[in-house]
């Protein structure tokens, strides 16, 4: 069927994407600027036989979606900075218990209560390092309302395929703005459903370390009666104190994602073959960048653009490739924060290439003009 053309808010696009992706359980606690996601889910989910629950806080919301996921539902929560901070402990549980779920963070200015209605990208590093212990996070950042629909679906799919929480990073501008979107028909959407075990119950290991590192996942009530715990555990899910098994578990958490960076990591780029200056940016800033790049090219400047769509994990090799042109002199990392993803770019850029930040954290969007000025400055 043909896609439907609609005018949607970014937060509404999350709702559409989630429903298309098969999310049937949502638990949340209202917070600006993400509340419209919960409101949309409250309205829509019961019509699909799905469940919406407003929990007493974000900690409980994160817990509830993990519980629901164990019971077999594709599940999601949505929040913003303060709530995202509160979710960190249970987010770690989802990592170690390898439980698929999607956490949407519509970023606003921080730290703390900060600027509830203002745009920011200052939870970028938190999305990677926010909970204690070792793990690898997947985080996606769309730049448009339409892309939000698609990346929400992708987030659900990645969560189910890799049995891991996936973080969808929006920002206030994207969450609140309305834009023309083309919503695909359900039949045209690629859906990944978690792989179910096909072994007899007594063979089943809930955390099996399979050769592919993708392990089948049974749900509660399907006859497998497995154990799930946040203690470091063996393949069966029972707590272990054996160093070898501990290491095997943590290696699995990393490798089940890092082995598949080629599949997971999407990075859009343009003009990097001969660019003198590259601009790296994501989310709504990437749109200002695109505008600026167009303006710069009109002025015959050789400018490249790199847009990480998958913010985490970082695909080191890919960036090395992108940065390998001899022509490249400088990389501008434009972010609505004091400099976060730039630390990754600095880590990966060749030493002869200047890496400079264009950082705005005064509650306003970076403008194309600012980027253009910065391009001129670094050349």
């Amino acid at each position, binding site marked *: 069927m043909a896609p439907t053309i609609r005018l949607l808010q970014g937060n509404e696009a999350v709702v559409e994407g989630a429903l298309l992706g098969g999310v049937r359980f949502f638990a949340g606690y209202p917070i600006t600027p993400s509340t419209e996601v919960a409101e949309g889910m409250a309205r829509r989910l019961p019509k699909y036989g799905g469940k919406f629950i407003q929990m007493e806080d974000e900690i409980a919301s994160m817990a509830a979606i993990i519980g629901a996921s164990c019971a077999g539902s594709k599940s999601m929560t949505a929040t913003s900075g303060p709530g995202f901070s509160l979710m960190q402990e249970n987010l770690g549980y989802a990592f170690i218990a390898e439980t698929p779920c999607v956490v949407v963070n519509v970023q606003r200015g921080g730290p703390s209560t900060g*600027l509830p*209605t*203002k745009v920011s990208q200052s939870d970028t590093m938190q999305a990677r390092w926010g909970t204690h212990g070792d793990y690898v996070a997947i985080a996606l950042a769309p730049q448009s309302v339409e892309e939000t629909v698609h990346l929400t679906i992708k987030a659900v799919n990645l969560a189910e395929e890799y049995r891991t929480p996936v973080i969808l990073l929006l920002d206030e501008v994207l969450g609140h703005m309305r834009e023309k979107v083309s919503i695909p028909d359900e039949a045209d959407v690629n859906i990944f459903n978690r792989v179910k075990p096909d072994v007899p119950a007594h063979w089943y290991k809930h955390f099996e370390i399979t050769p592919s590192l993708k392990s089948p996942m049974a749900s509660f009530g399907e006859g497998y009666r497995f154990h799930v715990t946040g203690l470091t555990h063996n393949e069966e899910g029972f707590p272990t104190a054996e160093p070898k098994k501990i290491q095997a578990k943590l290696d699995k958490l990393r490798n089940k994602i890092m082995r598949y960076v080629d599949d997971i990591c999407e990075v859009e780029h343009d003009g990097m073959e001969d660019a003198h200056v590259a601009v790296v940016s994501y989310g709504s800033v990437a749109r200002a960048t695109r505008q600026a790049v167009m303006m710069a090219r009109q002025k015959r400047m050789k400018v490249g653009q790199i847009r990480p769509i998958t913010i985490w994990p970082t695909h080191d090799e890919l960036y090395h490739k992108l940065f390998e042109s001899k022509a490249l002199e400088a990389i501008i990392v434009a972010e609505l924060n004091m400099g976060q993803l730039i630390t990754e770019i600095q880590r990966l850029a060749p030493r002869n290439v200047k890496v400079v930040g264009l950082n705005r954290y005064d509650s306003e969007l970076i403008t194309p003009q600012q980027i253009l000025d910065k391009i001129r400055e670094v050349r």
Partner: protein
Amino acid sequence: MSESSGDVEQVTPETGQPETKARNGRMPLTIYLHWCKACGICINFCPHQVFTADRDGKPIIAQGEKCTQCAICWLHCPDLAIVSNEK
């Protein structure tokens, strides 16, 4: 009200200057019209119809002489915009 931040820094320069509007004689109350948000509570709650509303919905003391100083208006004004001239 919506979740936000900057609101509380709006400094109204003339604040604190009462600007009671009265239509006739007695002035039983002072009304800080800058603070008044025209909610209509005083106008509706006054048991003696002392107030009428101006074009914006803010109170005008229409029948000051009827005021019994019952306190209902100033106790209920959410914007602390009414004080008695007598109590």
